[in-house]
């Protein structure tokens, strides 16, 4: 029975999600608000279920799944992020005639997938979790099925995602073929016995390539801007937050637990992906006119910084990755909630960056919130976004990767340019046509909360978050 107690959060979501699917199927459109709030309640319940000993039980189900602090840390970020993505959809799909209430259900299923991903200690459970998350995500991307862009986004995501899954599976098969085990510990032992053979190296590269796709790290990022732009905004908000955390944490666990002895082999790959993501994310964002595309590049850029922490390896590096993702999720969700509020007078969503022009004069508080998120994403002190960047650089310097840290920090200056551009448009330019005032107090409260978190007040949380991330990272070693 103990092993079921260890997966209590997943059980809650699985059973609840299935029931919700029935509710959604039978209640139809009328039940959409009910399903949404029930789903939020489920996610909160699952988060609460993380507290306590059973979820730190360690490996269960013959080493397929590990309920440890590392996974709990990830889940404690992802579950609330998924709940925010559900709340973000309030008042968004209502105008669509073809909206039904499955949105929340799909998010729940994706969340179960992510939950399995961060807990996976075997290549099988890794793949199952990843696919569960991906399949739900493909449907979500094309959720507005009468909208061409949304359908295109879904198709693109599916085709490229399937390719990536294929690459990943091929890598897994190589690893299994050359080591005879799927288990992370077994892999670590195999890698530890001798210098990795060519076959093992191939397997390692393919698996990392598949994961880089999910985390949208360069050079497997091509789908990101298109999917982010085409998908409905609440879905984009979801894609940019929780699945990113899952993919990065999964990569971290795999690299450290399973491939730990081969650190030299994967470190160079991670360093390349990190620097390429940082610079491409920064440079490619220059010419963007669509705010969602811009934030897509911003997310690529940010994943690059998280990977700098991973490249550092070691407990400090893993802890910095966790810290980074925790703050990143809040900044990104805040920014996307603001994008959701960009509507013209008739309530149609606006995505042009130029429509933000002069926002500080028509809607000062709204503009201030966006400015806070932008400066924070750029990592400019005194905003809180600076601190996680400091942590990953600290880890990199601590592992002797000073050149990497220097290159990455130069990348922050390049990236600062386009974040500044948004602030410039909002504060320096003449006012454009004002947006409609949204009537979504819950979303407003969430934006306020996120803005307060990334404001200098966030520094008060350094102690507790740092403690948790240290302890969570300790679970890997």
């Amino acid at each position, binding site marked *: 029975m103990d092993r079921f107690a260890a997966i209590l959060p997943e059980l809650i979501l699985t059973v609840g999600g299935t029931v919700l699917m029935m509710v959604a199927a039978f209640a139809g459109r009328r039940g959409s608000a009910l399903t949404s709030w029930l789903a939020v309640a489920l996610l909160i319940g699952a988060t609460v279920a993380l507290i306590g000993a059973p979820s730190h039980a360690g490996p269960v189900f013959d080493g397929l799944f590990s309920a440890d602090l590392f996974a709990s840390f990830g889940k404690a970020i992802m579950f609330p992020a998924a709940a925010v993505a559900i709340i973000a959809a309030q008042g968004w799909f209502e105008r669509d005639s073809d909206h039904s209430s499955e949105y929340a259900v799909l998010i729940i299923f994706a969340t179960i997938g992510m939950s399995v991903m961060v807990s996976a200690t075997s290549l099988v459970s890794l793949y199952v979790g990843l696919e569960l998350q991906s399949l739900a995500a493909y449907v979500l991307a094309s959720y507005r099925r009468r909208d061409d862009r949304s359908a295109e986004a879904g198709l693109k995501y599916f085709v490229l995602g399937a390719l990536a899954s294929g690459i990943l599976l091929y890598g897994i098969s190589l690893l299994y073929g050359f080591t005879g085990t799927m288990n992370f510990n077994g892999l670590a032992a195999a890698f530890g016995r001798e210098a990795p053979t060519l076959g093992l190296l191939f397997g390692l590269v393919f698996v990392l390539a598949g994961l880089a796709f999910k985390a949208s790290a360069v050079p497997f990022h091509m789908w990101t801007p298109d999917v982010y732009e085409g998908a409905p905004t609440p879905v984009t908000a979801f894609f940019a937050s929780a699945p990113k955390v899952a993919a990065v944490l999964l990569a971290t666990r795999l690299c450290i637990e399973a491939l730990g002895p081969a650190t030299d082999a994967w470190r160079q790959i991670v360093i390349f992906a990190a620097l390429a993501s940082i610079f491409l994310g920064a440079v490619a964002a220059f010419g963007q006119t669509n705010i969602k595309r811009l934030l897509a590049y911003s997310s690529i850029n940010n994943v690059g910084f998280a990977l700098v922490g991973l490249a550092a390896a070691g407990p400090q590096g893993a802890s910095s990755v966790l810290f980074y993702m925790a703050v990143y999720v809040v900044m990104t969700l805040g920014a996307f909630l603001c994008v959701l509020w960009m509507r013209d007078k008739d309530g149609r969503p606006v995505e042009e960056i130029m429509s933000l022009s002069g926002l500080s004069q028509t809607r000062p508080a709204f503009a201030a919130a966006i400015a806070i998120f932008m400066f924070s994403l750029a990592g400019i*002190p005194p905003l809180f976004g600076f601190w996680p960047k400091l942590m990953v650089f600290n880890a990199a*310097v601590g592992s002797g990767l000073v050149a990497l*840290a220097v290159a990455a920090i130069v990348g922050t200056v390049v990236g600062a340019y386009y974040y*500044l551009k948004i602030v410039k448009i909002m504060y320096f330019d003449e006012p454009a046509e004002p947006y409609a005032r949204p009537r979504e107090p819950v979303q407003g409260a969430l934006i306020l909360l996120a803005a307060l978190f990334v404001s200098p007040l966030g520094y008060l949380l*350094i102690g507790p978050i740092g403690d948790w991330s240290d302890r969570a990272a300790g679970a890997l070693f």
Partner: protein
Amino acid sequence: MAQLPLLSIMIAVPLVAGLLVLFVKANGARWIALVATLIDLALGALLWAGYNPDGAQWQFVERLPIGGGISWALGIDGIALVLIMLSVFLMPICIGASWRAIERRVPEYMAAFLLMEALMLGVFAAQDLFLFYIFFEGGLIPMYLIIGIWGGAERIKASYKFFLYTLLGSVLMLIAMLYMVMTAGTTSIPALMAYDFPVDAQKWLWLAFFASFAVKMPMWPVHTWLPDAHVQAPTAGSVILAGVLLKMGGYGFIRFSLPMFPEGSATFLPLVFVLSGIAVVYTSLVALVQRDMKKLIAYSSVAHMAFVTFGLFAMNRQGLEGAMIVMLSHGLVSGALFLCVGVVYDRMHTREIARYGGLSNNMPGFALLFMVFTMASVGLPGTSGFVGEFLSLVGTYHASSWAAVVATTGIILGAAYMLWLYWRIAFGVARTPEAAAMKDLDLREWWLLAPIAAAVFWMGIYPESFLRPIRNDIGRLVTRLEHVAPAGDSKLTLGKGAVHLDHGATH
């Protein structure tokens, strides 16, 4: 000492006021900002009164760990004290200067300025390495907004240039800080000032810090952001930029580069002297041919800052004390000169020198004060400029007579461009009818400029008030640098060191 956490209060007052002003109308915002900055000035006076020049090195110390290796650690020595005094003295004047000149979006403007003040005070008071960095970099955001929203025609380009230039300079320093904390195992600035880093590492660390402070200072050839930023910023923005923000570079050298990396400083001393020498001559020549008043003063700032680097890296008492006085004096004088430009700009809405002339006829009060500040900038004895430049030249001479020769040409060139500027503006006949019709200073403008003039004379006639608090700290620094200080080629045969030893003892 004082039980109150005076430094925290000084940082909190403008922060709270900065939030308050966002909720009131334009006039309320002006008054709140003025009152808040005056409160800070009063608190600064308390700080000065409470500071014991013969007491512990660090006074008014506060320490509150936040976790994750960073703590809210504040404390000041004499060097920080005088720079804090400069900041709180200039702030109310900046608010006053913006009283009528800023009409659009006043609450936001005042909020940005008050945030700026809090961050500046934080920079000078921080005793934790990362806390320092946060304050140091945080200042970019309000300054970016001030230049970009309320600046002149080219404000957007200038604001980007300012932001990205200074950010690029600073990020390398962050990596160096991380390395330092790992090596020394502490983030406390006082502890790091006494820590001896390996000599090889010192060179790299020194270069990383140099990148940041040289841009901030600014030194040739990374000074190009300054003229743009100055010209485009509103008057008060220029005042705070020239008055306080540039001093962060000099403060950085004296707080970090010199005491933490003595060997590194010695290694790169020729580099600093060469760059400073070029800056003095080159930027003075550039200043000579400017047609825009603000640009001229901006280039003169670069030249004056070169005196600071000369004095600092001479690594002897005269040089270091001189550099400190030049910083204070330049903060007052260039601030005042920008205010003077602002006074005529508010009336004529042009900064082109050729459109003015003969102002001594219709604006005698303005001409008088403008002359005082021109003379102080030139370094006339009796004004603050003389004390600083003389001391730092003496110090430079001890270190290298050639450097002193080059630096001294800067004084001559400085006199040339400043006096020529004054002649073109104040004497002769008005070149445009608008210039002839301008009214003299009103009461508000007198209130802005007269206190600065008083401070300039005070510092020029009795500099001891300002040298006293920094004397022991400079002494500690000189001791720390003793083993690497340049031997110098000047042969002091007559009573070598006698003056040096007596200095300070007779007071």
